[in-house]
């Protein structure tokens, strides 16, 4: 019913921090480990620079004398070298739709969509940071450690104040590293045919993606009655409905069709989609995406739970 500016970022950050504290530290179960040299805790199951013991092998001539493990060598006649497992950090890119449509908040919900998206993004960032992952806002530079979350928050703040970002409600096409993952927070209300090329351009870089569709409950149920003029938050589209209540069923049908169109595209890319409504607690979405990212499901890939989607109103959780 009413749009409001988002809450001050520091409040959201505090909220996100609280959320993250209640989640186990997130370790992205990277199926395909990227070959970045960056230091991380994902064992590459091969020797390399790292801290965890990997194997002993016989000394070869090319080895430096300093690499000999004298404690092991002393137990036998051969010289042994201690090799460590190559440990690498996984990179997670995040993107939040900061356009005007995200500022929408109806009377059914306590927070705007953008607030919720930022909270979720920061909370995920916190969890990933605790897990040692490198995080970055899409288009920025990935970082690890405590500073990474602060940097993420700063990036969001900067972009939220930038009118260029307020216009664009589609994920940008940037160079992402291979085998990295991206988390996209948006309402994804753009036409699927506009969204698909962008996602494809990201996917061809070898990036695995998770879409978090954040919707206001009013955007599902159309709880308006009587003569009503609807105005789009961006683009200036307007529709005058004589009796808004009579549009409800057909609007819902269209909403479901729209989601199916997105799902179809994601299925092709082997990406996943979560639908979250702002009247539900944020923990619900955080837990779901945490589970999804940590690979606690056997297959990280998206399996369409056809019956939920067809029922029309997926409540939080995964769809």
């Amino acid at each position: 019913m009413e749009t409001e500016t988002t809450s001050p970022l520091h409040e959201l950050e505090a909220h996100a921090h609280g959320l993250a504290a209640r989640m186990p530290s997130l370790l992205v179960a990277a199926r395909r480990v990227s070959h970045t040299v960056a230091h991380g805790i994902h064992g590459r199951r091969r020797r390399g620079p790292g801290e965890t013991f990997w194997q002993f092998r016989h000394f070869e001539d090319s080895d430096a004398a300093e690499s000999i493990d004298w404690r092991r060598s002393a137990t036998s006649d051969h010289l042994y070298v201690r090799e460590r497992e190559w440990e690498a950090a996984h990179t997670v890119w995040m993107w939040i739709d900061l356009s005007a449509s995200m500022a929408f908040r109806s009377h059914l919900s306590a927070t705007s969509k953008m607030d919720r998206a930022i909270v979720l993004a920061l909370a995920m960032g916190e969890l990933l940071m605790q897990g040692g992952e490198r995080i970055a806002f899409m288009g920025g530079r990935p970082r690890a450690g405590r500073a990474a979350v602060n940097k993420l928050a700063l990036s969001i703040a900067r972009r939220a104040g930038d009118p260029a970002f307020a216009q664009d409600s589609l994920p940008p096409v940037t160079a992402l590293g291979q085998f990295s993952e991206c988390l996209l927070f948006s309402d994804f209300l753009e036409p699927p045919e506009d969204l698909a090329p962008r996602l494809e351009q990201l996917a061809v870089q070898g990036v695995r993606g998770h879409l978090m569709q954040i919707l206001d409950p009013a955007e599902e149920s159309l709880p308006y009655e009587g003569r009503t003029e609807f105005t789009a938050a961006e683009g200036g589209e307007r529709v005058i409905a004589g009796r808004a209540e009579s549009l409800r069923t057909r609007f819902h049908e269209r909403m479901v069709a729209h989601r199916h169109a997105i799902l179809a595209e994601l299925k092709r890319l082997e990406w996943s989609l979560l639908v979250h409504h702002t009247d539900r607690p944020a923990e619900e979405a955080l837990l779901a995406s945490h589970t999804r990212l940590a690979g606690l499901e056997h297959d990280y890939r998206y399996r369409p739970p056809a019956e939920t989607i067809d029922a029309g109103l997926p409540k939080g959780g995964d769809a």
Partner: protein
Amino acid sequence: MMSFGPIGFLQPLVLGALIVLPAIWWLLRITPPRPKTIVFPPTRLLKGLEDAEQTSAHSPWWLTALRIAMAALLIFALSGPVLHPDRDALPGSGPVLIVADNGWAAASGWRERQSLIDTYISRAERDSRPIILMGTAGSRETRISAMSPQEAREAAASLQPLPFNPDRARLAEKLGNEFKGQEGLAAVWLSDGLDYGGGSEFAAALSALAGGEASLAIALPQSGAGTLGLRTAKGEKGRLAAQVIRSGGNARGGTIQAFTTRGEQLGEVAFSFAKGATAADAAFELPLEIRNQIARLEIAGETSAGAVHLLDSRSRWRRVGVISGEARELAQPLLSPLYYVERALSPYTEVEAAKGSNIASSVEELLQRNLSVLILADIGKLVSGSLESIESWVKRGGTLVRFAGPRLEKNGDRLLPAALRRGGRTLGGSLSWSTPQRLSPFENSSPFYGLKPPADVTVRRQVLTDPAAVRQAKVWARLKDGTPLVSAARRGDGWIVLFHITANSDWSSLPMSGLFVEMLRRITERSVTTPGAAKAAGRAQAPGDAAAQQTGLLAPREVLDGFGRLIAPSPAVAPIEAGKIDEAKPGPTRPPGYYGSASSARALNIIRARSVLEPLSPPSGRSRQIGYSELEAVQLKPMLLAAAFLLFLADMIIMLVFSAGGRLVSMIRRGAAATAPALLVLAIMAQSAGAQQSGTTTDAQALEATLSTRLAFVVTGDAEIDRVSLAGLSGLSRVLKARTAIEPAEPVGINVETDELAFYPLLYWPVRENANPLAEKTLAKIDAYMKQGGMIVFDTRDYQRTLPGGVGAQGPGATALSRLIGDLDIPPLEPVPENHVLTKAFYLLRNFPGRWDGGALWVEATPASEADKSARSRRTDGVSSLLITSNDFAAAWALDDRNRALFPVVPGGDIQREMAFRVGVNIVMYALTGNYKADQVHVPALLERLGQ
């Protein structure tokens, strides 16, 4: 004009527009109301869904009904509906004859009459008919001519009630001659509700005009609002009895007010009529001295000449002392020398008889009692002490009446008009040829002129004036043979009158006749009420007296106009013969009022002792009766337009609410939530502030008021008066700045109810005519202000509206003032006495003019006792806390930006304006410096005490 029942339409064709209402209904149905707007991100998904719904949206039915009603009201309003259109109609098609009673009885409802005349003129104007406007009491305008509406309005404005009975018969005759051949005449008679004889004949004459074709409407005053008349009579023991008469009607009441010649109110009594009663009595119970000052009675609220009763010297109540040379013979009262005198005097005077037989002590005792007339019966020679005291009393204005008798015959003293011949004269005795003498008619110069001596009065014996001294005395009455019967001489301011006969029937039959009563009455009436008091006045008026006595005519002095105000007589007013004033009836050349010289003016009143007010009973028949109100047909157009406009406003508000939708509701809700605590805080603050002080003055105001001296005036609420007050005080401030050491800042207007008064040394208070009484709290505040040294100048501003010459009622401002501060503890007041500090505070002043010149300036009376004096000087430095004037000071002081006067002064001249400013300067000096100037008189004594 088309009419349905009591409603008619001036433009019935417009009603045809009502058939478009269904069209409007249809239009309104398909025009949707403004939708509520919602920002909705998935709007794109809604696109294309709405088309089926678009046209079915419509306004709620009640909104449509409201708009239809608005349109219907507009159509009805434009069709010019009129309620009771028949009231507005004038029958006939010829000229409109308006006959208005403009005698004295019409004065009290004169405004209603004028508005009714105006109504009829407007109607005639609407129908383009000529108008003839006539007053029944007759004006100098005797011409009957048809007038245009404009001329008729001018004539109506100049038509005034006249102070005598209307002469309807004369007018009827005149009209009858004029309108013989006229056709289609519409006549309306605005009657005053009284029948002066021939009322129904007049109505018949009016309806018989134009050959009996004329239609007649008679306007009658409402029952119970009829005319009142006032007359007086002497009651028992000198009470002033007033009687109010009327022609009948419902029960009603009122008050009669008594005023002095200077317009001061002396008393008030209530009267009340029972239903149907035609007379109501009321009496003033006042001490003799005060009662004799009453010059005018009037019925409060009735502005007509008949509701005013003028009193003259005849109605005063005098004290007469009687002393006889003989011991009173109670056993034979009829032979007592004073029996007839007392009987003759007692109905209209207070007779004081000597208590003892000691003449000397009786004289002393009686003279101390403020006698007007002293009657000595047969006292030959007064003892020397009494002689001197009586002589000095006479010289101060007393009237001494002596009767002859055996003692006087032998031996007179010097208190006689002329020396007497020793020994009397007997007429018709057994040894004489002569017969008892009768009286000759009274001469013009005699005060008894006009009385008719009865033929049966004879004189058998008399004393005679010494022929050598006969010229010293005036002879007021003579016998047929020319010898004096009553002679008189002036001594100082008083008179010595000698009856050459005894006071009883021994020497003549005069004391037993009615003439004797009248003669004594004339003598007492011309006596001075309080010897000594009217000394100056008596001297000044002496020539006039003489003139009146020579001609026997009483010249008009002041006459009443139709509204009961005393005005200077017009040249057309004729004098009245002195003897005929009692019988005279007021008429065009003889309006009621005062006739004669100032000292012995005679009053002529409309309502006389035997006047009866007869109700007018208009004949039934062709005439139509109307009231003075409810005559107008009511135009409904403005009301309907207003209703349509209200509906339009309601519609606007509804649309506003619709378009703002829930936002408005939530705004209101939020606003209420936010304002409730604020209101609570405000309420608490207001309460605590109220508990602290009644004068809510902020520090800033207080500083502004005190950092420089300011003159202040009381804001009356009347913008014009306040503007004049401000201009006046600022003009005075400029004068003060230029001439004195006082440098006042701009004056301020203050609200006596809320503002703090303590900052201002002087408060100028113009009194509004319709001022309301002040609240208890405000009065207490003003009282405190005055007692703590503040000074208030009340200006009733109504000197020009008090009656000319000062006779009669107070002005409207003075009435308002007494209403305003009547409950205040006001010290006794007096006009500024000689040598008062106000006359010398800065300039030396003699009188205190403002815009008007002549009204007195009243100040607190100087306390009589030393104790009071010192108490007051301790409290307020001897400064009067109150000044009251009627001269409108502020208007005289008012200057514009270029120091030009805003108002003319009356009678006028730069000297008066200069004097007005000097008065202002003196008042301000007086307020600021107190009795400093009064102290100057002690300077020599102080210097002496200091040894210099």
